[in-house]
Each structure stands twice: as C-alpha cells, then as structure tokens.
C-alpha cells in the first residue's frame, strides 16, 4: 500500500530480525530456531538493580523455545496450541512489538494484526481521531487515509458515535472499530487472534465474511491463532501445533487438528 520499500535488519546479540515489504518473496514469515526468554525477577527492587548490575540473579522462562516454521505467501496457516504454549509471544514477534532472544525472525510484507481488538486505542480521543492517529502510525499518506476512512467508518457501524470520545464506547463498539481498521488497511499479512467472535452474531458473521474476502485475494497471507479447531478448519489449509513454545507438528489442517486433539 505504501510506496516506501523499507528493509530493516536488526541484530541483537544472538538474534536477527529481518523485516521488509517485499511481497514478491515466496516466503511471508520464517521463524528459525527462535527462542524468547522472559526474565522473572523476585520483585521490583531486583529488576531495578539489574539495570545497573549484571550480577543480579533472576529466573528465566522460555515462552518460545527453538520454534521453527515457515509460512508461505498466500498460505492460510493455523497456529494451534493450548494457553501458554507461546502463540501470543510468536505473534508479538511477527507484529514486531517484541524481539527474540536468539534465533532469527523474517517477515516479508506489512502485518496487520487482529488481536486484542479493543486495546490500543486512546480513551480521550474520539473514534474518528483514533482512526486518523492509527493511519498516521501506519504510515499512510493523506490521500490513502482519506480513501480508507469512510470505508472503516461504514464497516464499524458506529454511525454518529464515531465523533464521541472512546471512553464512552462499550467494549463491543471498541472491538468493532478495531476490527474495521485492522481489516480495511489492506495488509500483506493478516494475523487473526481469537478475535472473530467480537460483537453480536450478526457482526461476527460480517467479520468472518470480511476475513474470507481478504483471504480470497491471492497474495494475502493469513495466520490464524486459535485453540478453537472449528475456526481453524473453517479458514485454514495448513496447521502447526505448538507445545511449550516448540513446533511439534506441521502439516495439513486436518492432520494438525487430529494431532492436536489426540494429545
């Protein structure tokens, strides 16, 4: 969507992150032996001391441990796993808000994530201003945003509420706005969390149709993260099962669901 072709390679100790917007690359996302370690401190004082000294002891937990998988362009892939398996951490690394501890992450294309839809809005600003701000954050040009905004407003079905401050919105309204934005900006890679159950049945159906629309565009890659096997079966061709931060199975969606449910 944007004309800028920005490629960034970030090296952090043993970890490498490569991001660009090259949609001609046949690979959309590649995780190669990725490990993400969170530091657990006994209390906040220990955390504070650790910023000054490397000698402070802390516990570690590997949210992703030696996680490797490849998501090809145009593929619709489901990441299946129980709570705490490391799905969300993997998603955060794909969207770029957190960094791996070691291993390499490659993302080719612009990622839009439908996760925690109601989060990430500014409560003081109105719905419209929030959309404008998001467009800024996405790096859209003025013309691009002007073209998209009516579409987003219409899809969200907020009507005149769009000019009210966000703190007056119900959680369903926030989620609708979030979904409308994330699905309208024409990403190259769409990441869908347990988000399709937002709002009432009618809106939820509309969301599913929208995701199907997006998937029908052949070069859009969709990554589904769920523990609901029905949803995965409905939308995806292939599946990966994640257990304790590690990919234990990779194959077609039917086999992946069999493997996952048999555990």
């Amino acid at each position: 969507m944007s004309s800028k072709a920005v490629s960034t390679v970030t090296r952090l100790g043993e970890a490498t992150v490569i991001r660009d917007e090259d949609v001609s690359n046949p690979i959309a996302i590649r995780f190669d032996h990725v490990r993400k370690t969170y530091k657990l401190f006994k209390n906040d004082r220990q955390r504070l001391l650790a910023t000054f000294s490397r000698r402070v002891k802390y516990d570690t937990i590997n949210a992703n441990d030696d996680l490797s998988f490849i998501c090809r362009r145009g593929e619709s892939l489901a990441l299946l796993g129980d709570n705490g398996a490391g799905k969300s951490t993997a998603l955060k690394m794909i969207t770029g808000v957190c960094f791996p501890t070691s291993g390499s992450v490659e993302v080719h294309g612009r990622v839009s994530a439908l996760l925690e839809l109601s989060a990430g809005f500014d409560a003081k600003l109105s719905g419209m201003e929030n959309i404008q701000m998001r467009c800024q954050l996405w790096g859209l040009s003025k013309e691009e945003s002007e073209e998209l905004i009516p579409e987003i407003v219409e899809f969200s079905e907020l009507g005149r509420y769009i000019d009210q401050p966000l703190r007056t919105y119900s959680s369903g309204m926030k989620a609708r706005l979030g979904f409308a934005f994330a699905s309208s900006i024409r990403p190259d890679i769409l990441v869908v969390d347990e988000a399709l159950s937002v709002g009432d049945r009618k809106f939820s159906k509309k969301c599913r149709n929208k995701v199907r629309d997006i998937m029908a565009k052949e070069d859009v890659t969709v990554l589904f993260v769920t523990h609901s096997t029905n949803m995965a079966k409905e939308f995806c061709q292939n599946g990966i099962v994640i257990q304790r931060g590690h990919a234990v199975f990779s194959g077609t969606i039917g086999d992946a669901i069999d493997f996952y449910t048999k555990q």
Partner: protein
Amino acid sequence: MFETLKHIVSENWRWRRQVWGLAKIDLVRTYRGAALGKVWLFAKPAVYILVYWFTLSFGLRSASDINGKPFILWLATGVFPWFFMSDMITTGSDIYHKYPYLVNRLKFPLSLISTFYTLSLLMVFGGMMVFTILACLLTGVPLSVYLIQLPLVMALMFVFWLAWSVMLSPLSAISKDFGNLLKTLSTPFFWISGILFPLDALPRIGRIIMAFNPVSWCVESVRDCFVNDQWFWMQPKRFLPFLAVLLVVIILALHNYRRLYTEVPDVI
C-alpha cells in the same frame, strides 16, 4: 554508540511526517474533554504568573524592574519555560507509561514517542512565547534585537529535553522508582533554579553549581532574549557547562536506549 545515534536519527527522519501529525494529535488530546479547550493550555500558566507576581511584589516586596524591563516580564520568561520543563521532568521522563499502546500493541519506533511528545510541548511553549511578544508589543515594552536568538534557544532546549526523555524513559519503564524520584525532584528544581529569584543573588559556589543545572540555563537563556539583552553564547560561564551536561545526557541516552529498548515492551 554512533550506530544507535544514526539509527535514531534516520528513524526520526523517515517518520518525520507522522511525528508532526502525532504531536498535533497529542496536543488535541491534552485539552480534549474541556469546553474551553485550548484556553486551558494558557490559563494555567497565566494564573501562576499572576499569583507569583502578586506574592513577590506585594507580599515579599522583592519585585523590582530588571534591566529596565517590567518585573512581570522577567517572571513570565522564567515561568513559561518552566511549564515546558516541568512536564518534561515528570511526564517526559516516563513517556512509555503514557503511551503504552504504542509500545506493546503496535509496531512503532520507541524513540519517536519521545520526539513527538517533546515537540507537542514545545508547540505550547512556542505559543506562550508568541503571546509574550504580543503582550510586549501591546503594552509598549521595547523588544530588542536579542529576540532573534529565541528560535535557537528553543532548538537547544528541544534537543536537551528530547535526550533527557530518551535517557530516562527506558529506566522509568523498568522501575517505577525513577518516575517517582523525578516527580519528587520537580518541585525542588522549581525553587532552586532561579525561576523566582535572580541567580546573581547566590554565593559563588551556588552560582557554579547552578551553571550545571540545565533548568537554570534554559530559563536564563530565554531571559537573555527578552530581559537581559545579551547573546547566550557570549556567556561562557553558563554556556560551556550546559554543553557539557548536554553531551553527557546524549551519551547516556544512547547508552540506555541501545541497552534497554528491546526490554521495554516486555515490562510495560
């Protein structure tokens, strides 16, 4: 170190349009929810200046014209920059907690959060300076050629407080202690930095210490433009210590940013 500097500068340059847009949105955000809106940006400092003026000229009887300029102008040129700096000291040093969704919900370069917040505060400060100039013109207080250095002073203030925000925000994100410490220090800084009294009144040792206080430098340099009628770079006893502090803050900012920016999203 230079890598990090290059990284931050190029990031800011690439996103310059967004930074500008976000600064304006941040401005809207601060006065949103009030019927009088923008008036509040100026009402609070104006009331403070009147209160200080009342206290100092009628209560303490320590007000007198300075360099032939009205005392209230001297006061305003100290208190207006202070409002900018006090927000930078308290909120600017803990900026990731103000915009958590830019840190851990969206992919957004962290250094830009400091940039657009500082810029938004600087716009308010600029508005106050315009107001001061207009008030001078209306009341017939003579303005001198030294006023043309004001944009330069503001640019240096921008760089210093931006580096300040980049230096401290990662630490404040990791531990609340930094945020609390700086909020506690805000009031002492107001009273010791020569905003309400001329620094010349201090003993020699006090003046030397104050030369290394960036708050004093900012206030004195803004006063150079309006009241003292002198070039700020012709005051090496003030300017050189300030440059030294600026350099140290920039180096620490780069150091902290490089070491901690991958950790910030994990702890916010």
